[in-house]
């Protein structure tokens, strides 16, 4: 019996020829990412060395990436002090893959990692952020871990006591209608298998629809795999992946895509056909409370958010700008746009997307996560409703337990910003 992508990657990284779901392995880590919660990792890391007389040194500073994105620029003196501590730690440890608060190379961690070519097919990527699953879009095994486990990784360079997860095969066929895409597909999948549907398992995406999808769309699938409970969400690397890494991310060295064996042993198969898929909306307060847009149309919204590690990429801003160009955001509704990285921000500026969005009434923010998790800008008022291209709609998520958050695609968000109510972009949008 053959192996899935996750099994092959874990076998290689653990020095084994074969691994099976349920085996326990201790694989080498290729890349370890943290954002501001590196402050907590540093505490735990220093704890490991307490009383040993040894100077704390990370196992390999070249394999650690630190990116400030959760509260940027700092919203409080506490955050600023934490960021200062991390900056000093990076300098002291020689961690030079460090993305500070900058307009030239800053951004959201899950955009910076692919954009700067840190992630390669076949790697094991861990990050102290649940949406680290994003990087499975490049054919890596990428997963979120906590601060204590990361401190152990910083020390040893391996993951301790990792269970080999079973893999669910997701086969997607058909062609999306205009203004329907990757976000609608992943919301539909989460609604179908529920928020616990892939707990302790890997989602592996296949089928012609995924093969035709650009890396930006694949990142959406992998990013939100964690919302179905998945340990990782993998799109096996193909020519499109390699193209992206060479042309967009500037990777020069040889790349080796990992393909699943033809006789790989999957936990189960989930099939989705997208020809008739309508825009999908995740309704309050769980991500698996997913409905077709026809069931929630006309819901009044006070805030629209386009951005985040899920949908703040250039093609997301392009589709939003194409819908909003020459039109106005409805009175009583505010549109807040967070490009996912400085590079995207600049390109969106050069291509005129930001001008079109601003002329429609949108407020353009600097790249960051703050609004999505409700810690920095863009909070909701009591009784207000938001429609967002972000990834979570938990109660209180956008900074107010008395607010509601609906999740959608950038096209749906843009079309709805114009009307002030949830609107099907296939009718409300123009081409």
């Amino acid at each position, binding site marked *: 019996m053959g192996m899935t992508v996750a099994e092959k990657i874990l076998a290689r990284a653990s020095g084994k020829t074969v691994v099976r779901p349920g085996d*326990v392995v201790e694989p080498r880590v290729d890349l370890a990412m943290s954002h501001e*919660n590196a402050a*907590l990792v540093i*505490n735990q890391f220093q*704890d*490991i060395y307490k009383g*040993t007389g*040894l100077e704390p040194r990370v196992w390999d500073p070249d394999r650690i990436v630190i990116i400030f994105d959760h509260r940027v620029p700092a919203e*409080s003196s*506490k*955050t600023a002090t934490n960021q200062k501590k991390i900056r000093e730690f990076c300098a002291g440890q020689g961690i030079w893959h460090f993305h500070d608060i900058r307009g030239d190379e800053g951004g959201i961690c899950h955009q910076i990692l692919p954009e700067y070519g840190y992630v390669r097919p076949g790697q094991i990527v861990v*990050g*102290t*952020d*649940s949406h*680290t699953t994003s990087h499975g879009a490049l054919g890596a095994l990428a997963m*979120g*871990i*906590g*601060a*204590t*486990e990361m*401190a*152990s990784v910083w*020390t*040893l360079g391996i993951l*301790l*006591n990792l*269970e080999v997860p079973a893999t669910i095969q997701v086969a997607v066929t058909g062609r999306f209608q205009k203004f329907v895409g990757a976000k609608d597909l992943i919301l539909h999948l989460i609604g179908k298998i529920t*928020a*616990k549907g892939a*707990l*302790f398992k890997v989602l592996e995406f296949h089928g012609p629809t995924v093969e035709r999808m650009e890396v930006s769309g694949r990142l959406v699938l992998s990013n939100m795999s964690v919302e179905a*409970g998945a*340990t990782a969400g993998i799109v096996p690397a193909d020519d499109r992946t390699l193209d992206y890494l060479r042309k967009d991310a500037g990777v020069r060295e040889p790349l080796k895509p990992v393909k699943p064996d033809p006789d790989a042993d999957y936990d189960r198969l989930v099939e989705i056909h997208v020809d008739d898929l309508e825009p999908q909306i995740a309704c309050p*307060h*769980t991500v698996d409370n997913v409905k077709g847009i026809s069931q929630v149309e006309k819901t009044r919204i006070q805030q629209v958010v386009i951005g985040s590690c899920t949908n703040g990429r250039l093609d997301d801003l392009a589709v939003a700008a194409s819908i909003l160009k020459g039109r106005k955001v409805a009175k009583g509704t505010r549109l807040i746009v967070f490009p996912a990285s400085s590079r995207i921000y600049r390109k969106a500026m050069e291509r005129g997307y930001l001008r079109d969005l601003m002329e429609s009434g949108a407020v353009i923010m600097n790249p960051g996560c703050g609004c999505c*998790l*409700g*810690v920095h800008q863009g909070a909701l008022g009591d009784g207000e409703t938001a429609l967002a291209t972000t990834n*979570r709609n*938990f*109660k*209180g*998520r956008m*900074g107010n*337990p008395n607010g509601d958050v609906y999740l959608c695609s950038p096209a749906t968000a843009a079309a709805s910003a114009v009307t002030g109510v949830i609107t099907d972009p296939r009718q409300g949008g123009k081409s």
Partner: protein
Amino acid sequence: MALIEGKAYVLGHDVDTDQIIPAHHLVYSLDDESERREYGHLALSGVPESGAGLPEGKKPFVREGYFQSDYRILVAGRNFGCGSSREHAPVALHTAGVRAVVAGSYARIFYRNTVDGAYFIPLECREDLVREIRTGENLRLDPEAGLLDNLTSGKRYRMEPLGDVAGIVEAGGIFAYARRNKLFR
């Protein structure tokens, strides 16, 4: 592993990390004792009133003005701890005095955080304990034997074995596990 006795606090399905500790509170330091105890005060403060202490609800987990909860054992439904990787979630529960959680299932990152930091014991039960146990009932958990006794109702429930992570739980966290295996000096 010692017996754990205490009052039950019962929660529903899909209790996410924003309910366990809302993100805007994550500014408190974990290495400063006076700040760390704030997490005890705020534990489960994001749970909607209707789901706070089932079956009736509207039972605050931590009383106003206190940093510790009266409840020692959480009983929850499926997918407990879904959402963020924030380790503050198990820390908040631990700081409030939680010594064990018995749930239908867990989100992986939360589960591993709990085990790696040795904050409390996360056990799974195939029975629907959310319908069986009421907030405030007295429980006794024998983690070694995998048995939960409801001292109030007299009923007994069998827990699932810990499985792959038993070694880390027994060692007392991932650092202790690494030392035991001579990985850390």
